[in-house]
C-alpha cells in the first residue's frame, strides 16, 4: 500500500485500504465481536482457575444444556426486533412437552404425530398472542403474561402437577443422543441459528422485521404488512419454544409441568446482552445466542468454582444491567 504505483494502482490500493479499515472499524463496533471477545476472555480466566473447564466433555455438556433455551432465544430475538416480546415461552415449553408425552404414552400415537401435536401447542399459543397484540392492540406484556399464566395452568391442570413419565427410551435420542460426539439438540440449534441469521441479514422477508421494529408507521406507509409480520413472528416464537420443550421432554423422558419456569426473562436478558433492545429494531440472532452462551458460561463457571447456584441470579442481573448501561452511555456520546 505505497503511493509509488500507477494512477490506477493508487485508486485500487486506496479502495483496498479504506475497505480494510472500514471492515475492522465495523468489526470492533459490532456487538457480536464484543461478545466473542468477552466469551474468550472468560474462557481464558476459567481455564486458569479450573483445570476441568477446558475439556471437550465440559463444553459438550454445556452445549446440550443451553440448546433448548437457544431455540427459544431465536424466537425471542425475532420478536424483540419487531418491538414485541413473549413471556409465555417457558410455559409453552412445559405444555408442549407434556402434550407430546401424553400423545406418546397414553394415546400411543406415532412419534411423528405426537411431535406435531406438541408443535401445534406452540403455534396456537403464538397465534393467540399475535392476534391479541395486532388485532385487539393488547400490550405484549399483558397479552403474553395472560397466556403464560393460562398455558402454565393447563400444564399443571392436565397433569395434576405430577410429571408424565414412561416415555420410551428410543424417543429420548432426540434429547440425549449424539451424532459423533456432538449432542443432537446442539446440531438442531446450529441449523436453526444459521438459517434464521442468514435470512434475517439478507432475506427480504425477515429483513422487514427491522423496519417494523424501527418505525411501525414508516413501515406501514412503505407497504410492509406490519400486523401480519408481528403475528407470524409470535407464531414462530411459539413454535421455537414448543420445539425446545419437546426436546427437553425427550432428554428427561418425561413431561414436567413446572419445567422452565422463569426462562422467558433469562432469554430476554440474553437477547438484550447480545444487542437487542426492548424498543425494537435492533439485535441479531448470533448476538442473542452469544449472549446466552455468555450467561451459560458464567453459570458453568460459578458451579465449577463451587459458588452456590443460588447466587447465579445476582451475577446474571448485574451483567444484564451493565451491558445495557454501557450501551446507553456509548450512544449518548454520538
Amino acid at each position, binding site marked *: 500500500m505505497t503511493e509509488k504505483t500507477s494512477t490506477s494502482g493508487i485508486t485500487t490500493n486506496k479502495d483496498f485500504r479504506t475497505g480494510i479499515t472500514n471492515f475492522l472499524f465495523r468489526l470492533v463496533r459490532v456487538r457480536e465481536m464484543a461478545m466473542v471477545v468477552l466469551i474468550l476472555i472468560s474462557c481464558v480466566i476459567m481455564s486458569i482457575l479450573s483445570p476441568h473447564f477446558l475439556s471437550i466433555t465440559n463444553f459438550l455438556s454445556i452445549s446440550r444444556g443451553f440448546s433448548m433455551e437457544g431455540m427459544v432465544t431465536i424466537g425471542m430475538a425475532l420478536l424483540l426486533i419487531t418491538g414485541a416480546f413473549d413471556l409465555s415461552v417457558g410455559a409453552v415449553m412445559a405444555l408442549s412437552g407434556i402434550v407430546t408425552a401424553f400423545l406418546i404414552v397414553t394415546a400411543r400415537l406415532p412419534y411423528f404425530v405426537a411431535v406435531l401435536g406438541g408443535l401445534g401447542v406452540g403455534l396456537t399459543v403464538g397465534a393467540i398472542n399475535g392476534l391479541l397484540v395486532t388485532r385487539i392492540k393488547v400490550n405484549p406484556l399483558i397479552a403474553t403474561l395472560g397466556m403464560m399464566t393460562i398455558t402454565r395452568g393447563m400444564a399443571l391442570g392436565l397433569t395434576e402437577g405430577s410429571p408424565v413419565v414412561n416415555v420410551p427410551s428410543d424417543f429420548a435420542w432426540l434429547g440425549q443422543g449424539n451424532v459423533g460426539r456432538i449432542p443432537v439438540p446442539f446440531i438442531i440449534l446450529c441449523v436453526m441459528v444459521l438459517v434464521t441469521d*442468514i435470512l434475517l441479514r*439478507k*432475506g*427480504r422477508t425477515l*429483513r*422487514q422485521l*427491522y*423496519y417494523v*421494529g*424501527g*418505525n411501525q*408507521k*414508516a*413501515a406501514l*406507509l*412503505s*407497504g*410492509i404488512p406490519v400486523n401480519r409480520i408481528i403475528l407470524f413472528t409470535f407464531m414462530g416464537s411459539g413454535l421455537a419454544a414448543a420445539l425446545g420443550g419437546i426436546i427437553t421432554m425427550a432428554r428427561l423422558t418425561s413431561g414436567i409441568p413446572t419445567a422452565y419456569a422463569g426462562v422467558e426473562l433469562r432469554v430476554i436478558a440474553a437477547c438484550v446482552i447480545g444487542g437487542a433492545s426492548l424498543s*425494537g*429494531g*435492533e439485535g441479531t440472532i448470533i448476538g442473542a445466542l452469544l449472549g446466552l452462551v455468555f450467561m451459560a458460561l458464567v453459570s458453568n463457571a460459578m458451579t465449577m468454582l463451587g459458588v452456590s447456584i443460588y447466587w447465579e441470579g445476582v451475577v446474571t442481573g448485574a451483567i444484564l444491567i451493565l451491558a445495557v448501561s454501557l450501551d446507553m452511555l456509548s450512544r449518548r456520546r*454520538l
Partner: protein
Amino acid sequence: MLIDRENPNLIFEARQITKNYPGTCALDSVDFSLKRGEIHALVGENGAGKSTLMLVMAGVLRPDHGSLWLDGKEIHLSDPNQAQHLGISLVFQELALCTNMSVAENIFTNMQPVNRFDFIDFEEMNRVTRSSLEAFGVEIDPQVPLRKYNLATQQIVEIARAIQRNASVLLLDEPTSAIGSRETQRLFQVIRSLRDRGVGVVYVSHKLDEVFDISDRITVLKDGKLMGTVTTHETTSDDIVRMMVGRDFEKMFPQSNITMSAPLLRVNHFTGKGFSDISLTANSGEVLGLFGLTGAGRSELARAIFGIDAPLSGDIYLDDQIVHIKNPREAMKMGIAYVPEDRKIDGLFLEMSLQNNVGSTNLETISQGMMIINRKQAALAKDWMQQLMIKARNIEQLVNYLSGGNQQKVLFAKWLARSPRVLIADEPTRGVDVGAKADIHTLLHDLARKGAAVVMISSELPEIMGLSDRIAVMRAGKVVGVFNSADATEEQLVAYASGASTNGNNSYEVHQ
C-alpha cells in the same frame, strides 16, 4: 378558474375536493392541477387546508367529495401504497423513516434489489444509493444507520427515496422546515432537475422567498377555499400575501383599554437552542402576541423562560430584578405559568379526573401538611369549572373524554388557579371549537387587564391581531419586529414572519 380540463400537459388533477371534519370544513370544493414538468407551490396560512389537500392527493385521506385524475384518467386511492404504485409520492412533513436501518435500506424500503436466491443485493443497493445521493452533493455513507445523521440529511434521504420510486408526481410538504440554506439550494437543484425530466412537483411552504425562487405557479388556499392560481413570474409577494390573509369579516374580540402597565417580565440578549439574542419586554396589563411561522423559535423561547430547557446565555428580569430559573418549579414559585402547545402530551393527565388535573399544579393550596384534602381539591375544581364554563359531567370525569375545547379549558384552569403574574400561552386555541375559542380569548384578555402579563404565542393572524396589545414577530430564532397592534397590518406581519419583507430580514424595528 384557471384549470384547463383538455390540456394534455396536465399530469395530475384534483377536482372539487371537499373534506369535512367535525365542526370545520378543511377543504371546500378545491380544484388543483399539476402540469408535467412543473413546480407548483401551494401556500396559505396555518389551517388553510394545504396539508389536508396533500394528504388527499397522496391517498392518506379520502375526500368527502371530488375526484383525482392522473394522466387524464380518474383514480381512486384507498391507501398511500396505491398512490406510490401509480407514481405519486408524498414526502411527509414529519419524517417517516426507520432510523435504525442503514441509509440505503431506508431508500429501498420494501423494494430492495435481490439476487437469484432472493437475498437482498446489498452491493447494488449501496451503489445506487451512493449515486442517487451524489446528485444532492451530500456525502452520505449508505451503510451507516440513518440515526447517525442529522435531520437535514434525513430529510434529503426521504426525498431521495421518493425519487428512487420513480415518482411522476412528487408532493413535498414543507421540505425545508428542518434544513439549512445550503442544503435548501441543493434540494432546489434536485427539484429543478426532476422538473426538467418531466416530474410534476407540488411544493408546500410557508417561506414565500423560497416559493418565488422555485415555483412556476402558485395556488393560494384560505380557510379551506381556493383563492386562486397564478403564474409566479406575473405576480408579487404582496399579491400573494393579500390573497392569503384577505378576510370576509372581522371576528369579535374582547376590547378594553389598558389601565395599568409596567414592565413585568423582560429578557435581555436571551439565547438558547432555536432562538438567539432576544430582547423583549412583557408589561403587566397587556397581551403580548408572539407571531411567527412554525419553527421560528417561539416555543423554544417560552420553554427556556419557564425553565424547561436551559438557555445558553442572556438574562431574565422579573420586576427589574434579575432571576435565575433552573426548572419549572422555580418559574412557578415566581408566579410564571406556561400553557403548552400540545395539551395531550405536555399539558394534561388524560387518564385522570378533571379535579386531579386542576389539583396537580395547586398541591400547596389543597394540602394540609403532607395530606391532600379532597374537600379543598373538589372545591377548587368546582370553582374553576364554573368560572371557565367547562362542560363536563362532574369534576370526577376523566379529561380524556372531554371535547378539545373543554380539555383546553381544564389546562387553563390548572394554571389560572395559581393566579399567575405572567402567563405564557402557546397556541392557546389550537384545535378547539369556535365557542371555546371565544371563551379563551376573553379569559386571556381579562387576565391581562387585571394586571398580569400575558404572552400569547399564536400562528393564527386574526387571533394575534384581535387579542394582542403589542405584537412581536419572530423569524428564524430572532425577533424581527415589534408592533403596536393598532398600527400593524396582517400583510406586514406575514411579510416579516415569512421573510418576504426585504427590510424584515435582519433589522430589528420597533414601531411603538
